[in-house]
């Protein structure tokens, strides 16, 4: 988790003085976090840009009109409404805000590894809004992240889908309307193959892949019993109220937060994101899910997914993988860089994720690798970090592509996002500019300031 610093620079006095608008929700008085929070609900127009929609091709020299945080109009030759804040997109590329399907950023705890089933724990309880990596990810065009529990447990904790509204309290970063989810994990991490055998440390069940399957089945069997217990209570209550005066109100069953979450999975209300590597364990999990009547929303890592792509596609399950990161442990050896493209070819909804604060800043380059290695089309590769991720998270009605009615979550690049020299100029969430390279504390901006201070009477260009 050690990270070397990137060139994120100081908002020194001049910039610090920049006011926060009257309707901003700035609440931090701490000088260290002082920053401008963009106003909400305004009228914005991004003009004359190359617009990569991710859903219906690319629009040359197009304009996006944003009203109240939503994309209100889109196309060529659109008139800019009076009073709109205009962002000149000449020569620039606009793509949907990037969605990282696998993140642990801003979690103050990641693994409640004391038990192998911890469906009751919630990432949302442990987030912190001042994790610098959130800001760095904004600078890489990321607007939405799926903060997952770690992979220590067969059934880990509940996820948190966040929009990177940097500068606001963490409660204000939650993605409203995103369906709840949960982390599962299979294989070596759960078996504690690597490092779980320290002398004197009690061994935790399960120790084998057999045990992992058994624990999954046992947990969902418990959940079904619990579900039935509550149904019997609800029925008795409903029945009783219709009946006689002698009716004694039944005592409700114990509310069990762990089983509540598992029942939500059985009822299709909670999306499962399952850490997995090997093809055999992937098939095992799909079978368990089928037996209990629920769908796995996404397989995470899924480095051997190319071997069982048809089965994954048939289950309606997504795959969220690395572009070219493998061999870091035994179960991650049988990987190939063609994985993403091959799975996509077989009809799997594929995303490329980071699982890393660092990689999250350059997911657009990771997506480009699907074109290089697997021959994926540009649109397919773009979707791997936008629309497909929105689908895996169940938020594709709200974000993930540039379409009328969706949230104005946009990344504006200096050139094509897949070109090696391009970089993010501006990142918008709900039409608000949360990152602007011109105002960001970059090294270039700092040097400019220092120069000006050294020659206070010289105006720019006077040399």
């Amino acid at each position, binding site marked *: 988790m050690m990270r070397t610093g990137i060139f994120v620079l100081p908002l020194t006095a001049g910039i610090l003085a920049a006011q926060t608008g009257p309707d901003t929700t700035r*609440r931090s008085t*701490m000088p260290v*976090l002082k920053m401008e929070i963009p106003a909400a609900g305004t009228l914005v127009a991004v003009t004359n840009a190359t617009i990569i929609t991710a859903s219906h091709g690319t629009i040359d020299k197009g304009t996006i009109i944003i009203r109240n945080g939503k994309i209100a109009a889109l196309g060529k030759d659109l008139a800019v409404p009076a009073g709109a804040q205009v962002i000149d997109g000449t020569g620039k590329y606009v793509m949907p805000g990037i969605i990282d399907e696998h993140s642990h950023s801003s979690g103050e705890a990641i693994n*409640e590894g*004391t038990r192998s089933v911890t469906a009751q724990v919630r990432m949302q309880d442990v987030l912190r*809004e001042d994790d610098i990596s959130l800001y760095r990810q904004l600078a890489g065009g990321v607007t939405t992240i799926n903060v997952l529990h770690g992979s220590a447990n067969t059934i880990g*904790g509940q996820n948190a889908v966040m929009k990177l509204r940097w500068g606001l309290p963490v409660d204000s970063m939650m993605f409203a309307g995103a369906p709840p989810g949960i982390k599962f994990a299979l294989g070596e991490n759960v078996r504690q193959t690597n490092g779980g055998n320290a002398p004197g440390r009690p061994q935790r069940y399960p120790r084998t892949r057999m045990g992992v399957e058994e624990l999954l089945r046992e947990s969902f069997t418990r959940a079904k019993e619990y579900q039935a217990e509550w149904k019997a209570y609800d029925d008795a209550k409903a029945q009783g109220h219709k009946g006689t005066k002698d009716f004694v109100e039944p005592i409700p069953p114990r*509310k069990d937060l762990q089983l509540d979450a598992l029942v939500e999975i059985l009822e299709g209300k909670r999306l499962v994101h399952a850490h997995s590597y090997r093809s055999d364990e992937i098939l095992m999990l799909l079978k368990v899910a089928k037996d209990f009547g629920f769908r796995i929303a996404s397989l995470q890592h899924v480095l051997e997914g190319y071997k069982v792509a048809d089965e994954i596609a048939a289950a309606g399950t997504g795959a969220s993988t690395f572009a070219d990161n493998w061999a870091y442990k035994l179960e991650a050896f049988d990987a190939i860089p063609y994985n993403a493209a091959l799975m996509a070819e077989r009809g799997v909804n594929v995303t490329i994720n980071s699982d890393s604060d660092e990689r999250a800043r350059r997911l657009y380059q990771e997506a480009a690798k699907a074109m290089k290695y697997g021959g994926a089309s540009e649109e397919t590769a773009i979707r791997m970090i936008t629309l497909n991720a929105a689908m895996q998270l169940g938020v594709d009605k709200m974000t993930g592509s540039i379409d009328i009615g969706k949230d104005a979550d946009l990344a504006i690049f200096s050139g094509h996002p897949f070109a090696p020299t391009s970089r993010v100029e501006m990142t918008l969430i709900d039409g608000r500019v949360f990152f602007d390279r011109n105002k960001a504390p970059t090294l270039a901006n700092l040097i400019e300031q220092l120069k000006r201070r050294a020659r206070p009477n010289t105006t720019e260009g006077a040399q």
Partner: protein
Amino acid sequence: MRLTPVVRALTLAAALLPPLVAPLYAQSDTWALTNARIQTVTKGVIDKGTILIRKGLIEAVGPAVAIPADARVMDLAGKTVTPGLIDLTSSLGLAAPAAGGGGGGGGGGAQAAPSGPRGLEPDRDIARELKVAPGDIKSLRDAGIAVVLVSPSRGLFRGMSALVPLRDSVDDSEVLRSQVALHIGYQGVGGDYPGTLLGVIAYQRQAFYDAQRQGLIEDRYRTNPRGIGRPDHDPALDALVPVVRGQKPAFFDANNENEIRRAVRLAKEFNLKATIVGATEGFEAVDALAGRPTVVSMNFPQPAQTTGWSYRLSQRREPNDSAASAKEAQTQIEGNAGALNKAGIKIALATGGTRPADFLANVRKAIAAGLPASVALEALTIRPAELAGAGEMLGSIEAGKIANLVVTNGDILADSAHITTVFVDGIRYEVAPPPARAAGGSGSTTAAAQIGGTWTMTLNSPQGPLDITMTVTQTGATFTGSMVSQIGTNDITGGEIAGRVATWTTVVNVGGQSITINYRGEVDGSRMTGSAELGSFGNATFTAEKKP
């Protein structure tokens, strides 16, 4: 010959009470404190008045109080009397969790702990396990503190606190109130569920749901037991029932912004009668604290330990900019209590683990940073009394209240004030004057603390507590040594002592990465408390005890 009351009392005292045995008579003593400036807190200031103390209570107070014949008179001309201060953040007399001792707890569905409480015992009744030695008390009382609320300092359900007067000998019969509040924190249980912050909050949430159901079953059973099985006897759950019903206060130990928001979120979820205790970053969470009384710690964090600093540290800076912004942050940190007061939040001030001798000095810093002195005075006396459910007993100088008083030369909150006498339950304790400065010495050239020897340390890192054994060899104001823990043996480098502040560095190797850890500890005899910067792993606090 007509004797004035003063002379009469003095004569009596001289005749009856050999001074050396005075403490033996202490509690039944009748005292008349005369000619004092009296800050009653609730009824204004009496510029020159008398306080009459009898049987541990204030019998009368006013500008003209008749002095009975049996009263010993203390002429306090030129002095100020203030109600004894109340600190709601004490762990006085409680065994350290690792030491076992404790007794009490163990209930609550959790398996029996191998030794002592684990921080999972809502039913732990602190009043029953107090073991207070006079030595523990003196430094607090000398700082003007007459009453403390005692609770364990770690754990997620720490137990029910006790309100304790700082007399030289205290046992449970002297406790002012027991089971004052349930104390809640965020430390997990080592090696078992809940082990991390994730599990801790989930555990708390589940426990409150369980308590709601327990209350429901108990009520139903009480109303009509027909058809209902007897409620399970579960002391831990039973202890939570009044808390989840908002009848018993819940004190959340929450300091940084995120902790405060987490605590308030849980309090709202279950409609708890919650008080945030600590709140050193309350100024960042004024919106969350609005409408809640808050116990504000005077143990100021270092700027680098506060929320947002990781962003600050990641920035490229101009030379010396760091120091300037640290100073700016310090002002903000010290202005915390003032900011909360300005936002209309009722506050009590507490030591929060700062050295008792620094307590009032830090309160003065808070005043300098914007807290009105009158509010500070209330926040040291009547507010904490009310929060501890003892507003009728403590917190002001009024007839009928307990005679807890602080005598100072000058106003207690003035920079030059020093405490001369403290009364607790009407017992008089003299406070030795501060040690004279070395002749000619104008600065604070205190000698370096001696820390050579072996220390047992607990490092409270974001990843959980780590037990460390530290061996130190000191030469003058520098030291070397090693630190041994489950992550290996690491040499101490750059060890320096300035006064009682020790700073040193170790480099540890975790998962193939080397991390430089900077420690800063304040030495207080055989104890040391301080903080450690763990690079990108965050910051930690530590406590250490020197082995005898």
